[in-house]
């Protein structure tokens, strides 16, 4: 783990295109480690695209192109010869809808370890337990580790996906609207979890829920039409936004 004021992520003059569509326009920002950064903005503003830059998930979409510099722990992750599989081990991701594999609870968490060739049987079962504990799911599933992951509720499934991501010990966790498909109680549990995980991980979260952003994040970025309109401490963004667009959005005037 890096020291607190180290910039674990920096984006410099990022432009991103889906074929002809200019999805991200000259984005610049830096993120310290062990913090929670929220990205808000209307649908289609580019915030999810921006999030997916950092584990190169956008690579899976044909016809995308990036310009600018994208640094993770000081490494240009779009340089030639970067191993995306290794990058994705370091930069974990939790998706909008819980997407456990059609395997047992245990195997879901062990999967990342297995594909990365990490450890023997004993190591794996230990790591599965610690990951499930970190994701606040252990007590609920310890007696049914070998049952299908789909026997769990939606909220539990999402925490399982968080445990699955934690198992390979990433330093950064990308979360793309992780609670948008969940009920309020499950959402609250995920939020508590995010705040707790901040001690060990750098978390980037995209959310449509502005209360959520203000509750859990340290800094907030507001995106609109592919531009990062404003980026600053969450307190400042929500109490004294510098830009009128930001103010209009967070006060619910549009979006």
């Amino acid at each position, binding site marked *: 783990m890096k020291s607190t004021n180290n910039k674990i992520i920096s984006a410099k003059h990022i432009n991103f295109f889906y074929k002809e569509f200019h999805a991200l326009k000259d984005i610049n920002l830096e993120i310290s480690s062990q913090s929670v950064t929220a990205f808000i903005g209307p649908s289609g503003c580019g915030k999810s695209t921006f999030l997916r830059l950092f*584990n190169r*998930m956008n690579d*899976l979409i*044909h016809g995308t192109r990036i310009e600018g510099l994208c640094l993770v722990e000081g490494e240009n992750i779009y340089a030639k010869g970067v191993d995306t*599989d*290794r*990058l*994705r*081990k370091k930069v*974990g*991701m939790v*998706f909008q*809808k819980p*997407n*456990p*594999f*059609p*395997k047992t609870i245990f195997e879901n968490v062990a*999967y*990342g370890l*297995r*594909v*990365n060739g990490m450890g023997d049987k004993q190591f794996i079962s230990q790591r599965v337990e610690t990951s499930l504990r970190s994701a606040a799911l252990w007590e609920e599933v310890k007696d049914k580790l070998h049952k*299908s992951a*789909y*026997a769990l509720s939606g909220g539990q499934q999402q925490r399982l*996906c968080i445990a*699955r*991501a934690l198992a*390979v010990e990433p330093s950064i966790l990308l979360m793309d609207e992780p609670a948008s498909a969940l009920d309020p109680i499950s959402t609250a549990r995920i939020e508590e979890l995010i705040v707790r995980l901040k001690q060990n991980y750098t978390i980037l979260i995209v959310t449509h829920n502005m209360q959520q952003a203000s509750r859990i994040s340290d800094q907030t970025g507001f995106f609109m039409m592919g531009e990062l309109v404003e980026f600053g401490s969450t307190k400042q963004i929500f109490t004294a936004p510098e830009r009128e667009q930001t103010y209009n959005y967070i006060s619910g005037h549009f979006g």
Partner: protein
Amino acid sequence: MNRKSKQTIAFGAFRLLSLAVMGILLWILGFIIYNGAGAMSIEFLTTSPKDNMTEGGIFPAIVGTFYLVVCSMAFAFPLGVMSAIYITEYASNATIVRIIRIMTNNLGGVPSIVFGLFGMSLFVNTFGFGDSILAGSLTLGLLILPLVIRTTEEALKAVPDAYRSGSLALGATKLQTVRRIVMPAAMPNIITGLILSIGRISGETAPILFTAAAYFLPQLPHSIFDQVMALPYHLYVLATSGTDIEASEGAAYGTALVLVGIVLLMNAFAGVIRRYFNNKMKTY
């Protein structure tokens, strides 16, 4: 006439027609069982034909069909599955994918007798395999390849993309994702495709006519370079070109019954495998 009675009449007609479809199938099955059951005996299933094929059994034809099915699937199944994986999971060039798809679809439209002719020219003559299990199986394999590719493709496409992105996001390679996530999830449907393929080739006559099938062989094949008797061809011979067609009628129906029975049995077996995978992968 009001909407309600229109609906009653329409669905009544649909029900009648679907029952008719079922009826036809049952009729064929009943017809074959009725005519073929008389020929059925342990001897019929375990001995070779004799007395110009009016007596004896069909054991060599059963074994021959079994060999042809197994060998052609051993060739077509891996090839077809791997092509389907390439097309759906790897190929990034849309034009190439489209060309491959058009090719396989057209391949599937080629009449089976043309496959027979092609197989004879390539495998029997050019490669010098002669009339043999090998030549026949390769021909059958080519015939069935489009179906295997198509059903595997559909099976792979039915696997949610969320599984793939979930796996890749954990640092798994594409190959690991295919092997550990996509293939197991697609397996029940791939097995169904396998069932369809086996059913189709065990009944094909034209492709083996010039490449593998023997009119009469008193003994079993020793290697894949031997000719074999096969059920569909044997049926054809008994019904059209035996020395005494009337006397071999019973054997012909018996052969038909065995052929249908084998296909149904294979389907049931594949169904068991499919259920096993489904239970293992249950997502309820």
